[in-house]
């Protein structure tokens, strides 16, 4: 089991009102799954992703990642887990500006203190078909290319799971297709994927769809 959460609660206080972003959420994700999380804006799907990505801690409940309880770890430990176990792909602008594609991909390994960062980064860029453009800055790359660089960066530490937040949100349909094909390919090779999206196109490509509303899981089932 890659992910196992039990009775997770998360409440934000905005002004005078309380927002139950996650309200008793229990969800399991097994190795090799490709899960879509859908729901309207404010349904708690982003909070869920942040929680699963160890960017945030639950107010209560248990979160086991690779059977290891990460719900009460200190900040630095969480940073280490994000670095080693989780690959993030964000909606857009998730590359560091004025920093070449190669250097962006190297970064997680550099934070891990690894010395073979460059060779491995070149390998990963090659696997997403961008070896030729590795010296380019983010602003010299197209939206699709940037997302491919972000995927290469997410993959470089061989994480347990890829978490993608609206990965095709800013892309045209043809490019979206390309990115989803890459995801599918990765999943077929055994990578566990969790994609937060509001696009039906994307959800249809996933085997399992979790629908959220008001911080609760509304439905969780296999795509027909």
């Amino acid at each position, binding site marked *: 089991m890659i992910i196992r959460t039990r009775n997770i609660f998360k409440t934000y206080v905005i002004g005078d009102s309380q927002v139950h972003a996650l309200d008793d959420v229990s969800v399991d994700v097994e190795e090799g799954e490709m899960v879509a999380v859908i729901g309207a804006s404010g349904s708690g799907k982003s909070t869920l992703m*942040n929680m699963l*990505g160890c*960017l*945030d801690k639950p107010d209560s409940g248990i979160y086991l990642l690779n059977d290891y309880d990460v719900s009460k770890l200190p*900040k*630095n430990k969480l*940073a*280490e887990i*994000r*670095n*080693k176990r989780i690959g*993030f792909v*964000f909606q857009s*602008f*998730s*590359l*560091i*500006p*004025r*920093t070449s594609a190669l250097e962006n991909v190297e*970064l*997680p390994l*550099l*934070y*891990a*203190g690894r010395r073979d960062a460059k060779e491995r980064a070149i390998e990963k860029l090659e696997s997403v078909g961008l070896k030729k453009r590795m010296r380019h800055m983010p602003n010299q790359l197209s939206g699709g290319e940037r997302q491919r660089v972000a995927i290469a*960066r997410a993959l470089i*530490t061989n994480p347990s799971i890829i978490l993608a937040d609206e990965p095709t949100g800013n892309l045209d349909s043809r490019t979206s297709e390309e990115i989803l094909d890459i995801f599918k390919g990765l999943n077929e090779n055994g990578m566990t994927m969790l994609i937060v999206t509001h696009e039906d196109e994307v959800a249809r490509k996933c085997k399992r769809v979790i629908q959220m509303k008001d911080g609760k899981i509304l439905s969780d089932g296999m795509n027909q």
Partner: protein
Amino acid sequence: MPIGITIKVALKSLYANKLRSILAMLGIIIGVGAVISMLAIGAGAQAQVMERISSMGTRLLVVRPGQHGTHGVMSGQAQNLTEEDALAILNQLDSIVEATPVVSGNAQIKYFANNSRSNVIGTAITYFSIRNYEVEYGRAFTEAEVQNRARVAVMGPTTAEQLGFNINNIGESVKIDGLNFTVVGILKTKGDQGWYNPDDRLLVPFTTAMNTIFGQDSVDEIDLMAAENVDLTVVEEEVADLLRERHRIGTGGEDDFYVRNQADIIETADEFNRTFTILLGAIASISLLVGGIGIMNIMLVTVTERTREIGIRKAIGAKDRDILSQFLLEAVIMSVFSGIIGIGAGLGGADLINATTEFATLVQPFAIIVAFSFAVTIGIFFGYYPASRAAMLDPIDSLYYE
């Protein structure tokens, strides 16, 4: 993260915002430059005063008559120092190697149609060595001429110039207060020293001066040269004891003379200059401090502007200290570069001040080290707050920061 990579990242981000970085650095550059050139002015003034003082002879002691009077009512200078006092000091004290009586006053000097009002000093031949005078042309007067009250004079170069007296005229006569004196030599210049000009004077035998020019039997001053490697304050006390004995001044009686040594004068000058240097340095340091605030300001802007980048870095595994060192390093690199450029500016500034003003400047390695390390310390101090703010940012808040 390896430090080499962190430095590269910091350099790259500084380079990407060239103009902003340069403007932030400008404050520190000016600060370091100001500290170095201000300290150079202080050190230069100090060196100049030291040089002037030591040109008067560092082993010099001067005995002058005290104020004359009883119970605190002063009625003019005492006339009680004699040629015999000078001889007694020389003969009875081992710590004194030379002694010369001095009488002095201003007199009208006339050479054909030219005249000048100059300082006439009547003294013995040892005066030249005690006071570091050298004869450039001709000769000094001799012991025999002193004994015979000869009317001979050695002229200072400024006086000679004023009178139109040159080296070909040596051997000719000038009139001192109407009396003919043969000029036997011209002194080498010592340079104008600000508060008095040692080149504008005439040296004559003291015997002649006392009898013929000023008509007095006491001397105005006794100049002494101490032996090498003796403590001048001890010697000063020995001289005073001897004079008290000769002038029959009992214990508790008031001295009718006073003795000063060159060390006292040096100390006073030194102290003044130190205060002056500290003052200049402190004013310049304020600009360095302002420069540090400039760096902090820019770093705060940078951190805010790069909030999203910080969020991404944290999401992919940067720890708080990675972020802290990245931004702290940017501030430190800026201040190190500013320090280096500032040293150049300080050296240039010191040269410029030297060339265009009457201040002589002297850049001491100490001043460079102090200014540079002060700049780097300021970079760390003012860089730390923005960097720690960056490090403390919440990853989610910064990731979704617009």
